[in-house]
């Protein structure tokens, strides 16, 4: 182990001072004038001695008591006026300098990457300049920045074509309740269309937007067969699954027709109430049995239950769709709650048969329903403290009545986003 060396500055170099120094610190002091190649300074110093550099007025001494040196400096009788520990000096090494620079560059690069990531992920509100499908314009989609982020929207339908390019990269959870058919394929196409309206984004060819809650979590339950038909069992099984999974919205673009004055199903009334109790909103199509204007028919099951939101369809001229069922069983229940775009609605579709593209226009209360489901997801993101019943109330309170259209046909009116 190397000893500590000290540089000691002397007030004077007279004989007496040097001898006192030798005595006090038990060293032998050699004057620098006696140094030679056979009597080198470092050899002298290493032998616990000291070398006095007369011209500099200082001495280098090896392995002395530092406290004693400090006391000597404080003592006015001592010739020692200052001391410090010997420092190490190194020659400039170009390679070491380059390595240091490389380290600095790496650190700088990391800082730049960190900054870039921060800027890219910063939630900057982007101006809405995307062209919108007519249905989205009608509900005021240009006036909101909300996108359903974090909200679980469950579409119970014919399944979903998972290979659709507009949904590449999305994490989609699903389950089939139809034996022998998979949830992530949709030979029918209806489910993919409905899911696109509620949870899609923009067309990959024109960039025009057709989906509402583009950042929601899409959940798919296959409850209708590839022929477009389902049973009470498949629907109840799927709703039970969705409630157990704590999904916030269940979108049902399906219907079973009822007769005039037929009472609503207590089964679905119970299911709707239990869903609301579990903070889940069920939204269902009013049905497409009517032949207006002469023959409007009553709201179908399950939309005719008071605990399920019933959705009617309108066209782009703000007329009620000719097929859209109405609240004509008012005495026994089965009102329309709201209306939404449901005629010539463009959305995602599997490539099949004559359809070589990824989109088609479809009409039905089936298309109106996912507009409401998507909007509900925006509301839930916008008002995170509201429960499902309060969201329902907000949707109805913000719906816009349409001139000359009856409550019987459109309920509280055309759904609208809340500016924000």
């Amino acid at each position: 182990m190397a000893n500590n060396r000290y540089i000691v500055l002397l007030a004077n170099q007279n004989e007496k001072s040097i001898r006192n120094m030798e005595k006090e610190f038990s060293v032998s002091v050699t004057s620098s004038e006696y140094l030679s190649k056979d009597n080198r300074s470092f050899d002298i110093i290493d032998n616990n001695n000291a070398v006095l550099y007369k011209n500099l007025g200082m001495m280098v001494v090896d392995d002395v008591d530092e406290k004693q040196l400090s006391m000597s400096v404080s003592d006015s009788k001592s010739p020692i006026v200052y001391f410090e520990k010997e420092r190490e000096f190194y020659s400039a090494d170009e390679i070491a300098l380059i390595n240091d620079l490389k380290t600095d560059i790496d650190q700088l690069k990391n800082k730049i990457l960190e900054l870039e990531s921060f800027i890219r992920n910063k939630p900057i509100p982007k101006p809405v300049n995307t062209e919108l499908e007519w249905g989205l314009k009608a509900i005021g989609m240009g006036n909101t920045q909300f996108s359903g982020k974090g909200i679980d929207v469950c579409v119970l339908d014919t399944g979903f074509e998972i290979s659709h390019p507009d949904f590449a990269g999305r994490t989609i959870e699903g389950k089939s309740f139809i034996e022998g058919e998979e949830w992530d394929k949709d030979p029918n196409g209806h489910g993919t269309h409905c899911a696109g309206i509620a949870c899609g984004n923009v067309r990959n060819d024109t960039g025009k937007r057709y989906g509402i809650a583009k950042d929601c979590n899409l959940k798919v339950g296959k409850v209708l067969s590839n022929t477009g038909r389902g049973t009470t069992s498949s629907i109840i099984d799927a709703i039970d699954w969705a409630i157990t999974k704590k999904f916030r919205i269940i979108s049902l673009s399906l219907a079973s027709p009822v007769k005039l004055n037929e009472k609503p199903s207590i089964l679905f009334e119970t299911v709707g109430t239990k869903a609301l109790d579990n903070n889940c909103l069920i939204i269902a199509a009013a049905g497409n049995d009517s032949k207006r204007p002469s023959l409007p028919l009553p709201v179908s099951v399950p939309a005719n239950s008071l605990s399920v939101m019933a959705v009617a369809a309108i066209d782009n001229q703000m007329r009620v769709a000719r097929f859209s069922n109405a609240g004509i069983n008012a005495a026994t229940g089965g009102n329309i709650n709201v209306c939404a775009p449901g005629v010539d609605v463009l959305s995602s579709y599997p490539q099949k048969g004559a359809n070589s593209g990824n989109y088609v226009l479809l009409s039905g209360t089936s298309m109106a329903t996912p507009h409401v489901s998507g909007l509900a997801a925006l509301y839930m993101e916008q008002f995170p403290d509201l429960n499902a019943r309060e969201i329902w109330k907000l949707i109805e309170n913000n719906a816009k009545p349409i001139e000359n259209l009856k409550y019987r046909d459109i309920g509280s009116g055309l759904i609208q986003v809340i500016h924000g």
Partner: protein
Amino acid sequence: MDKKMKIYFGVIKNGTSFKNVKTKLTDLGIEILKYYSKLRIVKFETDQNIEEIEFDFFSAVEEEKDDFFI
């Protein structure tokens, strides 16, 4: 000629436990297919005429429909 088995859904009355329902349905010779605990609904299958059975533990019993369409 064999009677056709049909599927029904029973909505359990408030204050009635599933255990009680299960016992009574078993006593009636009715097979439970599924119990939806979150919904408090029982799916069961029977070939009996349910009009003739008094389900005092259900608030409603509905037969399975297969006419839900897109």
